C-alpha cells in the first residue's frame, strides 16, 4: 500500500487558482432574476425546461389520442399531427433534456461538487440562461404564428421542411424553429464554456480529476461533446435558413411543386442529413452521459457501497464520448450509402456498446451485496438500468444495416429511441430531483407521493413502449397519423394502440402528482438537514442548506479522498465525506 501523497503531513499546499471574486447582488432583481449565482441559474434553467417539457407532454397526449382513437378528434388533422410530432421531439431532446442536464444539473452540481464558489464566468453564465429563455420563447411564438409551428419532423429534413406541402414550411413556422435553435446553440455555448472551464480551473484543493464524482465526469464530457457537436446543427440551421429566406440551393434540389418549377436547383438533401446527424448522434450521448454519471452516484450512495471500477467508469465515459462522433451515419442507412460505409458505421455502432456494457456491469456489480436502500431516487436509478439495457439491446439490432433497413420506418424505432434516450434519461432526471431536492430546498420530497409517481411512471412507461416494439415488428409505419385499412395492420394492433394511449394518459397524469409534490414539499416537506442521504460528495458538506451564494462560507473545503468511501471497514460511520481528513481508506482494514 503506497501512500501517494507526499504532502499529506506537511499541511495543505496552496491553491493553484486564485479565489474567484464573487459578484455581490444588491437588489431583489439581481438576486433572484438577473442572478449570477449558478444555483439560481440552475433553478431558472430547470424551471423553464420543465415548463416547456409539459407542453411537449401534452403534445404527446394529442398524438396518442389520434393514434389510439383515429378520427375521434376533429382538430387533430394530419397537418396538426405532424406539428405535434415535430414540436414534441424537438422540445424533449433539446429544450428539455439537454437544457435540464447541462443547464440545470450542470449549473447546480458542478460548482458544489468540485468545491468551487461559483462558475468561473458568472456573468456569461447568466447570459446563457437568458438566451436559452429567448430561444424557448421564439419556439413558443411559433405555435401562435400564422400557419402554426413547423411540421417537418424533428429532423427537419429538406427539401420537405421548407416546401409549402409541409405545415410551417412556407410560413413562419420553420423560420422560427431555425432561429430558436440558433439562439439555443449560442446560449448553450456560453454556458458550456463555463461548465468545462469550471471543472478545469475551479476545483478546490485536493480535488484531482480522478477524485471527481462521476456526475461531474458525465456532465463535463457531455458538455465538451456538445460544444463540438452543436456547431454542426448551427451550420445546418444557418444554411437551411439561407435556402428558405435567400433562395440559395445548399440543400434544395431542382423541384417541381404543384406543377411549378421552383427556383432551387442542384442542392443536396443528403448534405443536410450528414450535418444534422453529425450533431444528432453525439446528442444522444450528450443526454446519456450526464445520466450515466448521476446514476452511478445514486447507486453508490443508496447501496452504501463504493462504485465498482471507478477508473473504468471514467474511461468508459470518455471513450463513449469520443466514439459517438464516428457513428452518425447509422441514422442514414435508408438514405442510401456505399456498402463499405454501411459496414464501417455498423461496426463503430456495435463497438460503442462495449464501453456502455462495461458501465452497466459496473452498476450491477456496485449493487452486488450492497446495503440497498429502496428510496425513491434508488428506485429510479434501478429502473434506469433496466430501461437502458432494454433500449440499448434494440439499438444493437438497429445498428446493423440489414436489420435497420426493414425496421427503420416502423414503430420499432420509435420504441427503441424512446426507451433509450427518452424514458431512461427522464428516469434519471426524476431520480436526481428526488436525490438533490433536499439540498436545493432544505426539505425532503414526500415519500408516499414519490413511490406512487415512481411505480406509475415505471410500469406505465413499459406499458407504453414495450407493445410498440411488437407493433413495429408487424410493420406498422411511424410518422403516419392514421393507419387506414391496410391488411397487415391487424385488429390487435388497433387494440394495442388504444391501450398505449390509455397508458400514456395515465403516465402523464402521474407527472402532475410529481409537480404537486415539488410544490407541496417546498412548504410541508420533512426538514432534511444538511446530508439526509449520508452521502460523501462535497455538495452535501456545505455549512448551510440550501447553500447560499458563494456556497462555502469563509473557507472552501479541502478534499482528502475520492467520492465513494462508503462502508469503509473500521470507520465510525458508514460513509466518510470527501473533506474528512480522517485516516481510514476504503478497502484497507486498519491494522
Amino acid at each position, binding site marked *: *500500500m503506497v*501512500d*501517494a*501523497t507526499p*504532502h499529506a503531513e506537511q499541511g*495543505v499546499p496552496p491553491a*493553484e*487558482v486564485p479565489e474567484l471574486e464573487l459578484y455581490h447582488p444588491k437588489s431583489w432583481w439581481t438576486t433572484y432574476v438577473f442572478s449570477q449565482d449558478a444555483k439560481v441559474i440552475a433553478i431558472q434553467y430547470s424551471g423553464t425546461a420543465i415548463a416547456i417539457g409539459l407542453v411537449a407532454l401534452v403534445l404527446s397526449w394529442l398524438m396518442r389520442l389520434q393514434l389510439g382513437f383515429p378520427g375521434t378528434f376533429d382538430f387533430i388533422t394530419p397537418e396538426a399531427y405532424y406539428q405535434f410530432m415535430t414540436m414534441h421531439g424537438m422540445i424533449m431532446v433539446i429544450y428539455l433534456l439537454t437544457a435540464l442536464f447541462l443547464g440545470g444539473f450542470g449549473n447546480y452540481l458542478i460548482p458544489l461538487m468540485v468545491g468551487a464558489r461559483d462558475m*468561473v*464566468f458568472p456573468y456569461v453564465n447568466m447570459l446563457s440562461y437568458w438566451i436559452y429563455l429567448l430561444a424557448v420563447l421564439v419556439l413558443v411564438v411559433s405555435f401562435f404564428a400564422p400557419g402554426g409551428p413547423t411540421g417537418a419532423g424533428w429532423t427537419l429534413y429538406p427539401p420537405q421542411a421548407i416546401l409549402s406541402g409541409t405545415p410551417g414550411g412556407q410560413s413562419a413556422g420553420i423560420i422560427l424553429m431555425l432561429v430558436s435553435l440558433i439562439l439555443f446553440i449560442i446560449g448553450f*455555448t456560453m454556458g458550456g*464554456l463555463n461548465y*468545462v*472551464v469550471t471543472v*478545469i*480551473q475551479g*476545483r*478546490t*484543493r*485536493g*480535488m*484531482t*480529476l*480522478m*477524485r471527481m464524482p462521476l456526475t461531474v465526469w458525465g456532465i463535463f464530457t457531455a458538455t465538451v461533446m456538445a*460544444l*463540438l457537436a452543436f*456547431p*454542426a446543427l*448551427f*451550420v445546418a440551421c*444557418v*444554411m437551411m435558413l*439561407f435556402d428558405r429566406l*435567400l*433562395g*440559395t*440551393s*445548399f440543400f434544395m434540389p431542382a423541384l417541381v411543386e404543384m406543377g411549378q418549377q421552383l*427556383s432551387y436547383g*442542384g442542392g*443536396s438533401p443528403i*448534405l443536410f442529413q*450528414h450535418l444534422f446527424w*453529425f450533431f444528432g448522434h453525439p446528442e444522444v450521448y450528450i443526454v446519456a452521459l450526464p445520466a450515466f454519471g448521476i446514476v452511478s452516484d445514486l447507486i453508490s450512495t443508496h447501496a452504501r457501497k463504493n462504485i465498482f471500477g*471507478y*477508473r473504468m467508469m471514467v*474511461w468508459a465515459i*470518455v471513450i463513449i464520448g*469520443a466514439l459517438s*462522433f*464516428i457513428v452518425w451515419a447509422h441514422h442514414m442507412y435508408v438514405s442510401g450509402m456505399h456498402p463499405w460505409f454501411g459496414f464501417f458505421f455498423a461496426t463503430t455502432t456495435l463497438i460503442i456498446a462495449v464501453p456502455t456494457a462495461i458501465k452497466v456491469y459496473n452498476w450491477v456489480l456496485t449493487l452486488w451485496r450492497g446495503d440497498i436502500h429502496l428510496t425513491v431516487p434508488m428506485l429510479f436509478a434501478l429502473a434506469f438500468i433496466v430501461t437502458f439495457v432494454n433500449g440499448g439491446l434494440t439499438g444493437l439490432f438497429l445498428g446493423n444495416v440489414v436489420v435497420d433497413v426493414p425496421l427503420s420506418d416502423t414503430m420499432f424505432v420509435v420504441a427503441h429511441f424512446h426507451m433509450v434516450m427518452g424514458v431512461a434519461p427522464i428516469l434519471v432526471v426524476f431520480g436526481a430531483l428526488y436525490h438533490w431536492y433536499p439540498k436545493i430546498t432544505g426539505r425532503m420530497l414526500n415519500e408516499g407521493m414519490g413511490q406512487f409517481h415512481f411505480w406509475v411512471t415505471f410500469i406505465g412507461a413499459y406499458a407504453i413502449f414495450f407493445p410498440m416494439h411488437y407493433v413495429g415488428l408487424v410493420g406498422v409505419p411511424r410518422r403516419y397519423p392514421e393507419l387506414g385499412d391496410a391488411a397487415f395492420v391487424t385488429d390487435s394492433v388497433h387494440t394495442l394502440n388504444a391501450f398505449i394511449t390509455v397508458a400514456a394518459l395515465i403516465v402523464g397524469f402521474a407527472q402532475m402528482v410529481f409537480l404537486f409534490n415539488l410544490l407541496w414539499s417546498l412548504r410541508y416537506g420533512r426538514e432534511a438537514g444538511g446530508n439526509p442521504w449520508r452521502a460523501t460528495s462535497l455538495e452535501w458538506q456545505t455549512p448551510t442548506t440550501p447553500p447560499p451564494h458563494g456556497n462555502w462560507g469563509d473557507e472552501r473545503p*479541502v478534499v*482528502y*479522498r*475520492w467520492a*465513494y468511501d462508503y462502508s469503509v471497514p473500521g470507520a465510525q460511520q458508514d460513509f466518510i465525506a470527501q473533506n474528512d481528513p480522517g*485516516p481510514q*481508506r476504503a*478497502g484497507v482494514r486498519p491494522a
Partner: protein
Amino acid sequence: MSVILVFLLVVAGFSFWWLSRHRLMSKPWLEHGVHTALPETDVAGMPTAKIALGIFLAVVGSLFALFSSAYFMRMEYADWQAPPLPNVLWVNTVVLVLASVALQCAVHAAREGRLDMTRLALAAGGLATFVFLAGQLVAWQELSAGGHFMNVNAANSFFYLLTGMHGLHILGGLVGLGRVAAMAWSEEQVTERLGLGVDLCAMYWHFLLFVWLGLFVLLAGWAGDLIAICRQLLT
C-alpha cells in the same frame, strides 16, 4: 465530412494528451490526503480566461471545419460553378496579416510595460481589422456587380456565407478589442489585466487569420488541387 473529422482528431488528440497528464491511471480508492489539484507537470499558471478562450476557439474551429466539410460535399455536385476570385481578397489577406502582426507587437509591448507602444499597436491592429472588413465588403460588391449573386449558384452562396460568418467573428473580436483599448487608455494602472486582455486579443486574431487563410484556399479553389496532389502522393 473529412475536414471536421481531421479537426476533431486533433482536438481529441489534445484532449487525451491533457487527460494523460492528470493521473488517469491513479487508484483514487487507495489514496488519501491532499494532492495538488494540478500535477507538477501541468501549466498551472495559465490564466482561466486564456483556457476559456482556447476552448471557445476549438468551438469556432469546429464551426468552420463543418462549413468547409459542407463546402467540399456540395462541390461534388454537377451544378457547381465557382465565382471568380475578387482580387481585393489578396489585399485583404495582407491587411489581416498586418493586424495580427500589430497585435503581436502589442503583446510584446504590454509585456515590457511600454504603454505608448501598446496603445499604438492596438490602434494599428484595430484599424487594419476595420480595413479588412471594408475590403471584404468591397469583394462582395465586386462579385454582385459581376452578377454573381448569392442565389445564382451554391458556390456563390458559400462565398457570401463563409466570408460573412468570418466577418461576424471578427466583429465580435473587435468588441473585445474595444474593451481592451478602453483599458489601455484609461487612467488607472491595470498593467496585469491589460497584458492578459492584449494576449487574448492576439490569440483570437491569430486564430481568425488562420481560419481566413483556410477559407481563402477553399474559395480560391486551390483546395481541390491540394486534394488531388495528396491523392497522387498516396497512390
